[in-house]
């Protein structure tokens, strides 16, 4: 039963950490400790509801739950938000923290402070939040809580005198942690009599209920039947229903009170009118000031998405529209390619986000897609004074019309064991990085800060970093703005024709080596066909690298008599279906992987 609890007994908090430090597992233990989910309904990382989250064991979308907790005979409400740790989804952390009064900072007892630990702490500090240091995985043989706490104090400057040691795996320390949450996270202190003032910190689409807003009520309350106004759009809507989020299924309520979180049903057909960061107020007596929102999620990486079968364009559009209902960070607009036909230029938060979106489109919507090489956004000042934004290398104006190309830079933070510093510095230099800072957190852990062009780190850098440091380094980045760069467009010609979908923008100094490597890579990926296929890399009309895929010599089976014909036909049909997954460019068949091949080349 839903019972009214005074603000003093409500705690709103997020769980933040570096990826895989155990946020979702700890959330499981807290949920169980509060008895919100029966043994039978419990599963590992119960808040990770998407199939792809379960499969990959990572959190992609922040999730909220409301939990009842009794302490010293008194009822408390714990509103918990589990956040993702991966750098691509740090936007999820921002919006979660904007609706919280405090956060648990989880640090893995064996791994210690990592790049996203620091990045997420900064987001929390910007929001002025109370942080509880929690060392997790103390059950591990390699656990070293004292070292980890010292690291937190030194790297982050967070006072760790009061801290919690837990094992989300065994449950050790979890009930003490909940006590600490109640004791140390500030209670909300909203004005209960003021006009409604609530922050939309998530919105999504439900097939039955329509667009839903997840809100944190800062002042006043929201009641069923109330007429509310969304301040950003200035539109008024009746409140049809209200619910509290619960790990298994939402629980209906007639009212969401001051300091609480809840889901508002307004019967809207699209989520467009329920922008995350917007304020909901009363339609008749509106609040004077909206809650300071936050920057909408901004895509950094752009790539073309094309259906392999050209008649699936509309299906792809529908699928993207549906995905966007639950993923406001996904941006897309139609584009067309000479090579690939009609598709979309889509913007992503990073490579993992792109991978996830592509996989969901293929799996949940049964589409076969080609993703083209991802690129960052460039700004181009043309000789006629116009300044344009480029999300696709093939949009780059002709060289004589370009005055300056500006490329985005980031501040990259890397935490690494001492042993790998030398190799890392070399990698970062190769990537045009300039060192800003190198701090020893302790004898063995080093924090590197680099100023570096974004296009050097968003694509394959993460894999490179992991292989250079055997997985021990972690990395975070944050955009710092645009600066002029000496860049050129590198085109790939297959059988003499420029394939627009394969063009990339590269630093002039690296064009030749990249061109060679790219051509080599494509040579490996494009299978032999009936005709010899020439592959060339060019800048403008100058060919800078070339190679050939030799024509196929032989493809036939030895025997085919009366009894073999059906079997042979079926075999050919199967092979044909395999070839369908390739894209025909003129008479050449190019496999899907070729369009992402640029990610696999060094330099």
């Amino acid at each position, binding site marked *: 039963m839903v019972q009214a609890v005074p603000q003093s007994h409500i705690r709103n908090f997020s769980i933040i950490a570096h990826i895989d430090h155990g946020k979702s597992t700890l959330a499981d233990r807290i949920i169980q400790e509060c008895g919100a989910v029966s043994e039978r309904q419990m599963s590992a990382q119960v808040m990770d509801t998407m199939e792809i989250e379960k499969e990959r064991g990572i959190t992609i979308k922040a999730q909220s739950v409301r939990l009842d907790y009794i302490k010293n005979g008194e009822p408390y409400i714990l509103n918990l938000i589990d956040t993702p740790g991966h750098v691509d989804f740090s936007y999820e952390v921002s919006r979660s923290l904007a609706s919280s009064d405090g956060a648990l900072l989880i640090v893995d007892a064996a791994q210690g402070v990592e790049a996203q630990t620091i990045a997420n702490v900064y987001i929390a500090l910007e929001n002025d939040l109370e942080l509880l240091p929690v060392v997790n995985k103390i059950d591990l043989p390699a656990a070293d809580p004292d070292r980890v706490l010292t690291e937190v104090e030194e790297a982050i400057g967070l006072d760790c005198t009061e801290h919690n040691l837990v094992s989300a795996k065994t449950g050790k320390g979890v009930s003490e942690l909940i006590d600490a949450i109640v004791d140390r996270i500030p209670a909300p202190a909203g004005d209960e009599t003021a006009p409604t003032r609530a922050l939309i910190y998530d919105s999504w689409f439900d097939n039955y209920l329509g667009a839903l807003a997840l809100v944190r009520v800062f002042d006043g309350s929201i009641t069923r039947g109330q007429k509310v106004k969304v301040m950003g759009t200035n539109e008024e809507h009746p409140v049809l229903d209200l619910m509290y989020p619960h790990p298994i299924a939402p629980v209906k309520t007639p009212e969401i009170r001051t300091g609480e979180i809840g889901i508002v049903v307004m019967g809207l057909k699209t989520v467009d009118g329920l922008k995350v960061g917007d304020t909901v107020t009363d339609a008749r007596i509106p609040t004077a000031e909206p809650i300071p929102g936050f920057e909408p999620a901004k895509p950094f990486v752009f790539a073309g998405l094309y259906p392999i079968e050209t008649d699936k364009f509309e299906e792809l559009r529908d699928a993207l529209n549906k995905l966007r209902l639950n993923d406001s960070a996904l941006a897309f607009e139609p584009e067309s390619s000479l090579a690939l036909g009609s598709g979309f230029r889509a913007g992503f938060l990073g490579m993992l986000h792109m991978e996830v979106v592509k996989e969901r489109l293929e799996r949940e919507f049964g589409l076969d897609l080609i993703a083209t090489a991802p690129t960052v956004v460039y700004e181009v000042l043309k000789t006629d004074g116009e300044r344009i934004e480029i999300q696709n290398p093939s949009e780059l104006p002709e060289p004589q019309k370009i005055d300056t190309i500006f490329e985005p830079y980031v501040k990259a933070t890397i935490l690494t064991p001492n042993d790998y510093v030398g190799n890392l510095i070399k990698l970062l230099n190769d990537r045009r990085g300039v060192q800003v800072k190198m701090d020893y957190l302790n004898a063995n852990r080093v924090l590197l800060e680099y100023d570096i062009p974004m296009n050097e780190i968003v694509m394959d850098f993460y894999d490179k970093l992991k292989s250079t440091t055997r997985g021990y380094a972690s990395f975070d980045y944050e955009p710092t703005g645009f600066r002029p760069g000496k860049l050129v467009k590198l085109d790939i010609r297959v059988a003499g024709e420029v394939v627009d979908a394969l063009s990339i923008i590269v630093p002039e100094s690296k064009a030749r080596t990249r061109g060679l490597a790219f051509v080599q890579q494509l040579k490996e990926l494009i299978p032999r*066909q*009936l*005709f010899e296929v020439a592959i060339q890399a060019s800048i403008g009309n100058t060919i800078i690298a070339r190679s050939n895929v030799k024509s*196929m*010599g*032989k*493809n*036939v*089976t*030895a*025997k*085919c*008599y*009366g*009894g073999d*014909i*059906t079997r*042979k*036909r079926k075999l*050919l*049909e199967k*092979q*044909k279906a395999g*070839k369908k997954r390739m894209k025909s460019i003129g*008479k050449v068949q190019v496999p899907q992987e070729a369009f992402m091949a640029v990610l696999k080349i060094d330099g």
Partner: protein
Amino acid sequence: MLVYIHIPYCDSRCHYCAFNSCVGRFDTRPQYLAVLHRQLTYDLEHTGATLNSVETLFIGGGTPSTVPPELYAPIFETLAPWLTPDAEITVEANPNSATRDWLSGMQSLGVTRVSFGVQSFDADKLRRLGRAHTPRHAIEAIETAHDIGVEHLSLDLIYNVSGDTRELLERDIEQAFALPIDHLSAYELTIESGTPFAATPDIRQNDDALAFFVAESITARGFAHYEISNFGRYQSRHNLGYWELRPYLGIGAGAVGFDGTVRTYPPADIDTYLTDPLRQRTEPLTPDDLRTERIFLGLRSRIGVDAAILTPKQKHRAVMLTEEGKLQEEKGHYFNPNFFLADEIALFLMG
């Protein structure tokens, strides 16, 4: 109309073989031939064959030379009125069981063509293939067949078995041409699942150049290359019939029949066949299926593809291939000048 008869017996098992045949069930031969006779009689009467219309008969296996001529006699007797006067009547034989008696017995029943499973004239290679005969057997059997006056003689060779060299194959081909044959089949080794070789797939060597070498070496000696694996001064009308998608009766365990639109499959298991030879599975073919078959069969042989059967898209591709020299067009047909690319071209045309 063509007729195929399947004899599922062998006296030993070759390591590469996936044919429907068994070793050591010789006791069932008389019964098998009797049941087979029953199916033949039934099929002749129920599949629209007319008297004097069966142009070719092919007895294959397995090893047809493991069955004595007497047991074939009723079949030939029944078939006689259905055969055209110049029918091509082929029987397959293995060198070790094709004795003079057997060969002359078969000839007197009406056999006009014997196809010998020779595979190689290299004793070591024969052993590795698990063949039961020696090079000597093969030479003698073919000479005997010629001696008693069988009109057309053919032999099979296998290549791209690991260890095959140009020299070895050249010797095999030379020996073949020293014999009185007018036809030769040269098969590249295929590893079939379920065979002993499937466990040692490296026994297959991937030397594409050797395939071209074999074909050139045979055609240089005057045999026409009329299908990917078939060469001859005489071209088997039965084989060509398959590739032209002519109707055929499939008689025997594991045989396959075809009436122009439907394939029929009698039971493949001998015991099931013996109890119920008429319980056939059928496979109707759609016009698309038939078009696909005409395309790939035409491309792997000298038959070619009739432009009229192609869809506009396929036609467009055929024209493109012709411009590239990958196909040749003549009187509304597309011909493939390089059979070794047949599947790739078929896939390209099927698009």
